[in-house]
């Protein structure tokens, strides 16, 4: 079967690079074609990368607490750019401090993210979900 393509990056002015490297490694090992755009990536960088590479999913990481602001409007922007059914996942430390997870989860779901992960989520969990969502599990 043809490899599925995932665009991976850390959004906004965020420079936390360690998790990104681990995600790249694990996704590649799991058989995905990983397009890693690295840290300091804007929504536009994610979207442009997904267009050119015909990606199936976008994995957004946000570690420094400003995830909500950085991710706002991302689904609409994807649609605007013609990325109709692309999967949008987000994880890391997406909001500041310890907030009520149900609220955070809902906020990001409402923003159009297909999967929203709390701090400390294992990579495997995300990968299993994606296999399900892409119908390759």
């Amino acid at each position, binding site marked *: 079967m043809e*490899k599925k*393509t995932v665009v991976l990056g850390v959004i906004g*002015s965020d*420079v936390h690079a360690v998790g990104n490297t681990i995600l790249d490694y694990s996704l590649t090992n799991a058989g995905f*074609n990983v*397009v*890693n*755009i*690295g*840290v*300091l990536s804007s929504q536009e*960088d994610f979207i*442009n*990368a997904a*267009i*050119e*590479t*015909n*990606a199936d999913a976008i994995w957004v990481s946000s570690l*420094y607490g400003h995830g909500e602001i950085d991710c706002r409007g991302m689904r609409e922007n994807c649609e605007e750019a013609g990325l109709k059914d692309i999967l949008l996942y987000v994880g890391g430390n997406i909001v500041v401090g310890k907030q009520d997870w149900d609220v955070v989860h809902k906020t990001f779901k409402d923003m159009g993210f297909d999967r929203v992960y709390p701090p400390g989520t294992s990579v495997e969990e995300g990968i299993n979900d994606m296999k399900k969502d892409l119908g390759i599990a």
Partner: protein
Amino acid sequence: MDCYLFIDFGSTYTKVTLVDIDKEEIVATDKAYTTVQTDVTIGLNNALDRLFTKVKDDVRIVKKLACSSAAGGLKIIAIGLVPELTAEAAKRAALGAGARVIKTYSHNLNNSEVLEIKNSDVDMILLAGGTDGGNSECIMHNAEMLAKHEIDVPVVVAGNKSCADNIVEIFQDKVEYYITENVMPNLKSINVEPARETIRSIFMRQIVNANGMENVEKSISGILMPTPASVLKAAETLSLGTKDEDGIGDLAIVDIGGATTDIHSIGEGAPSRAGVYLRGLEEPLAKRTVEGDLGMRYSSLSVYEAAGSKVLKKYLDIEEYDLEYEFTKRHEHTSFIAETDKDIRFDEAMAKVCADISMKRHAGVVEEIYSPLGTILSQTGKDLMELPYVIGTGGVIVNSKNPQAILEATTFTMDDPTSLKPRKPEFLIDKEYVLSAMGLLSMVDKSMAVRMLKKYIVKCGGNTNGIKE
């Protein structure tokens, strides 16, 4: 004596350069008006007649090589998918091949865009789109559109390899096409060399159709390339050297012409400071940018527009001139030669503006991103801060009494604090106009080209002993 003969068919002049192979020196150079309207060999023979009146010894020409920018040079339209990605990569590949990029298109073309392409007088189209295995709809749509409108210039296809076969099917028997490697095989890297080579080989075949070129083609030894491509080749050769001959390292060339200003830079352009994050498309080691709005004559009005009085004031006492009049005069009389002190000062100031703005556009920028931790620096484009050499070529610089002052306009100042322009480069001059000839020479004997470039590219204000003291 055994010699190489290098020919440069320019838009105005056909220049010839005779090189003594054993002594590795220029025996003589000369020029005559280019005659594209009738037969280019007339102009070439005029130039050769003049050249050979100066040469006393018996000359045996071992090889003849030519480059050309006659008849407007090589005009290309670049097409890609995302403007900042494959469309930009296609544009860079075309520029590196020595082309004038008339326009760049992105995403799915519509009918009016294709009509615009069809009605333009381009020589070639570079069609990209999608990384390998990535998006294929766009490039296929665009291929269909080009085929539907029966585009009658060659199309170089340098996009997603996975749909090469489909494109062959679309173009078969309808469009002249050449499939080459993707300009952006994967997102983080660009691959401009194969597209450049393909463009060059088509150029060779095409230019032969120019008036009289078939006669030239028979007599030259095969290598014929766009003049800017041979200048870029010379720059690369001088910078990188060969395994026998050391290059001089990173450098930039500034070429201010009547219509455009070209900057060629050779160097990775990696951040010169620690802790800087790189953004944007990968930069080609040998990079050429062309500013179509910066030139001494044809583009003088747009120089005025690009500079505004703010930049002009840096280089000129603007109270002394009727600016409107001066720029228009140069635009309307493109063969105008500055003779009075006042006109010369004006031309030199214009040249400084061209040098300043073109380097600003060529060099990268560094932006500060504020975070709770403090500022983070992110760089887009090449960092040329520590660039060791800036080389000037072209009439305005070479004939200037103070070429250094013009070249200094390419350097970093606090007027553009985010620019990564060279800070303290050494300035060199292509006094004998050898660059295009040396680019051709490097196609046959690279080490010799390195040695001759070192000999003939001289320090600003220095003697003629070349780069090494």
